[in-house]
């Protein structure tokens, strides 16, 4: 046998089984840009790049595992994962650590993590499962139940307070509802309702959240305070020009004008050093990633797989759009990382698990269709 004669090739074949090369290539390209950017951003903390590389290795492992799980099996995890996520969110309220004034972290043994991160996948998983079960005849009532299942974790996360993650989780859930076929009229009504609820929502926001939104209108009002992030990141992007200042030559970055330059504002570093051309490259890569994800959704075998894949694909888009919009000064400052680039293990793992799900959906696309 050929396989027996070439053990290396058989191992590669085993590893590559179920892995979608296109998706992986795009994601790794973005991640490579990320490591390069992090190297520049963390000139004073050399451990960061190695740390992120290690995070990447762990995330790839998680992706590989998930990619081998068929969607039917994933479906079985939907309800337990959602309930477990809710339980963890309650645990955060009771025992969570407070970091920077927000109660988001939960200790487990030696490490700690943010349960809200888990909801980014658990919520679309649950909603996809719910609508799949009721596929035969979806009624408006089902969408109302779906909305309630969405609202529960989102409100809990918003209360932590973690507006950024709440928005992302809400978006992920909304995409499932949208793809499940909620009527356009109902959608329009929801939109109006959403706009109308902005006023009371404003009252629920914390002072600093309100200030961040107001800052968007006039950042110069408080150059030392809340406006600082926006002013400095806009300068970084704008001064990058067409071709950028060159790798390791961003003055905004290296003179420490950019806050949070490893995490939420890493795009300012990228944009300053690689300019509009770099930004276009990144936009194209993200567009390809999202496009590939939507294509996988379009060809998916079951209703469940379709909804889940569509939601995950649009989740990548949301991350990228909200983060880049924030850095470029057209969206308020909320804590959303730039996908595959921002420093941080949990977010990276979530993204790659999402990729793994897409790959699993893609691999099993033909099983039922014939």
């Amino acid at each position: 046998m050929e396989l027996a004669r070439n053990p290396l090739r058989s191992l590669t074949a085993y590893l590559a089984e179920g892995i979608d090369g296109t998706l992986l290539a795009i994601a790794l390209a973005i991640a490579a840009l990320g490591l390069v950017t992090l190297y520049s951003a963390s000139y004073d903390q050399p451990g960061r790049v190695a740390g992120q590389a290690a995070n990447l290795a762990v995330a790839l492992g998680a992706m590989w595992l998930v990619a081998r799980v068929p969607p039917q099996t994933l479906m079985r995890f939907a309800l337990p994962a959602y309930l477990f996520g809710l339980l963890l969110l309650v645990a955060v309220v009771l025992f969570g650590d407070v970091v920077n004034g927000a109660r988001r972290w939960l200790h487990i043994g030696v490490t700690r993590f943010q349960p809200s991160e888990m909801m980014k996948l658990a919520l679309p998983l649950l909603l996809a499962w719910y609508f799949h079960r009721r596929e035969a005849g979806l009624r408006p009532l089902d969408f109302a139940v779906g909305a309630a299942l969405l609202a529960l974790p989102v409100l809990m996360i918003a209360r932590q307070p973690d507006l950024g993650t709440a928005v992302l989780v809400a978006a992920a859930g909304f995409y499932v509802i949208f793809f499940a076929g909620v009527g356009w009229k109902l959608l329009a009504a929801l939109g109006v309702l959403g706009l109308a609820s902005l006023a009371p929502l404003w009252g629920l926001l914390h002072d600093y959240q309100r200030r961040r939104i107001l800052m968007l209108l006039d950042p110069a009002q408080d150059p030392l305070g809340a406006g600082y992030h926006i002013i400095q990141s806009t300068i970084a992007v704008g001064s990058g020009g067409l071709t950028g200042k060159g790798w390791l030559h961003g003055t905004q970055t290296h003179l420490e004008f950019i806050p949070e330059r490893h995490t939420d504002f890493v795009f300012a570093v990228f944009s300053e050093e690689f300019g509009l051309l770099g930004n276009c490259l990144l936009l194209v890569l993200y567009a390809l990633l999202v496009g590939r994800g939507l294509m996988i959704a379009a060809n998916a075998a079951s209703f469940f797989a379709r909804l889940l894949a569509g939601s995950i694909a649009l989740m990548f888009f949301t991350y990228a759009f909200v983060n880049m919009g924030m850095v470029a000064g057209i969206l308020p400052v909320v804590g959303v990382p730039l996908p595959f680039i921002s420093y941080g293990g949990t977010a990276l793992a979530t993204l790659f698990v999402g990729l793994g799900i897409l790959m699993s959906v893609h691999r099993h696309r033909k099983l039922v269709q014939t």
Partner: protein
Amino acid sequence: MRPAELRDHERELYYFQLRIGFAGAVVLVAFALLFARFFYLQVVQHDRYASKAEDNRISIVPIAPNRGLILDRNGVVLARNYSAYTLEIFPAKVHDLERTIGELGEVVEIQSKDRSRFRKLLAEARTAESLPLRTRLSDEEVARFAANRYRFAGVEIKARLFRQYPLGATASHVLGHIGRISTRDRDRLEELGVEANYRGTDFIGKAGIEASYQHELHGTAGVEQVEIDAAGRGLRTLARTAAQPGNNVKLTLDVRLQQIAEDGFGERRGALVALEPQTGAVLAFVSRPGFDPNLFVDGIDPANWDALNNSPDRPLNNRAIAGVYPPGSTFKPFMALAALELGKRTPRSVIHDPGYFVFGERRFRDSKPGGHGTVDLYKSIVVSSDTFYYQLANDLGIDAIAGFMQHFGFGARTGIDLEGEASGVLPSPQWKKKRFRQPEQQKWYAGETISIGIGQGYNAYTPAQLALAVATLANQGAMYRPHLVSQVENPRSGTRRAIEPELVKRVPLRAENVEFVLRAMAGVNREGTGARAFAGAQYTSGGKTGTAQVVGMKQNEKYDERRVSERLRDHALFIAFAPLESPRIALAVLVENSGFGARAAAPIARAVLDYYLLGKLPAAPNKPAPVEDAEEEESD
């Protein structure tokens, strides 16, 4: 498969793919929007932002404002600032901290307490922060480091302002102390929306006036525009908006009176609060033992912190407002007033005091064996008859007592301008219901009312509450909120803002009843339990002694017998006001575990009154009154 079902399925898939297409279009539009924004910033507005980035060679550096001073009522400085050099490390820029510190030790002296303090700061620090390793460098050390500077990346010498408390431990519980801004402090500042103003600030008030007047003392941060080179080093200052220093805070305290009061305690633990009845101004405020607030100024080192925090004397505990004690017999004048106001006794009511009071099966004993014989209301205060007040408490009932005492602020925070005030306990059936869980514990027993009458039982008040009650009584029922700050002054403009006395309430009382109780209290100092302490006083005064039983001995303290017996001794109390005709000062003194109030607490009150009214210094300062065993025949 039936065709209809298949068609349905296909139609559904078609609609889904339609939505996928729609989503794809939205994504493209959104990315196009981003592209447009990037194009606008990076091409259209590029020149503008490029020059802004170039201007960003100009770094905006916040300047921390000078903290305001704290002064006593005569302008004596109690807290000030001085400038000194510190050696600071920026941990993120140093690869091997331990080695760097070791090498620094060859250039400037670094003691092990500096190291341990630095490690503590490192553990608490936010990431981007430079931390002091050594403070108060000598000129020689600064020069030595400057010569070796090239060896130490990420280490800098900075000139900083330090807080100093020139009088050391004097009034330490009033002043409190400052400390480095913790993560929790940052969160609170962010909640208040003032974090930008604290950007250059390292220290914040942690206790006392330093904490409660933090926002007055802090000032407004300035901004300096510094031109920096490509490596980020400052080249020259281009422009600056000066910081506005914090306001000076002037206290109502007279520091000399404060010292006399503190010295009166000697080595003993306790508290004293003296008030001006007509305004609520705090004239002296003692909680002993105190602490040296200078220890906290550049981050307290762990050894000192442990010593302060773990001492059984609990020197960081502000006894005057956070310690609660039974008032003992100092409660009696208020009980007498309650009896008169509620018509349960008249000045002519007389009882026979056999030395005990029988209630049901129980016999409540008087502190004087054999009793005081025939006792009227006046004598009951002067000689401090327990039997009289056992009976009175029984006649009044707990609801009437609680209802009346509440007027004088017992069991409620006084509202003094310090943080951390305890509310104490004004016992009542309602309180018991709230306090306990078990139904049998929640019930109020009539027998419990009896000892309430002599200030024992569940009664638990802070010395500040007791002082406020005396001041209110001396001021004919007009209660003013106690306050430690008389004015806040802007050091630049010199404008002053006086803190106006704040009338809390007027307790409706009949003048002749108040007059009677005040006269009886004058009798205490003239011919009663306070007479010895007030012998030869050149002013009229009223007082009342008290002795409070220490309850709730902890099991685990039993092994050290000498210590236990000391801590089990009664607390000595004394309340006073003077002069009788128009009181200018009212006070409460408590000396822990010192036995009779007349012996341990009254002399401290005498020294305070002598100085405040006559300007007379105590004859033998610093000599603590001998603490004798409470075996002597003496009534409190």
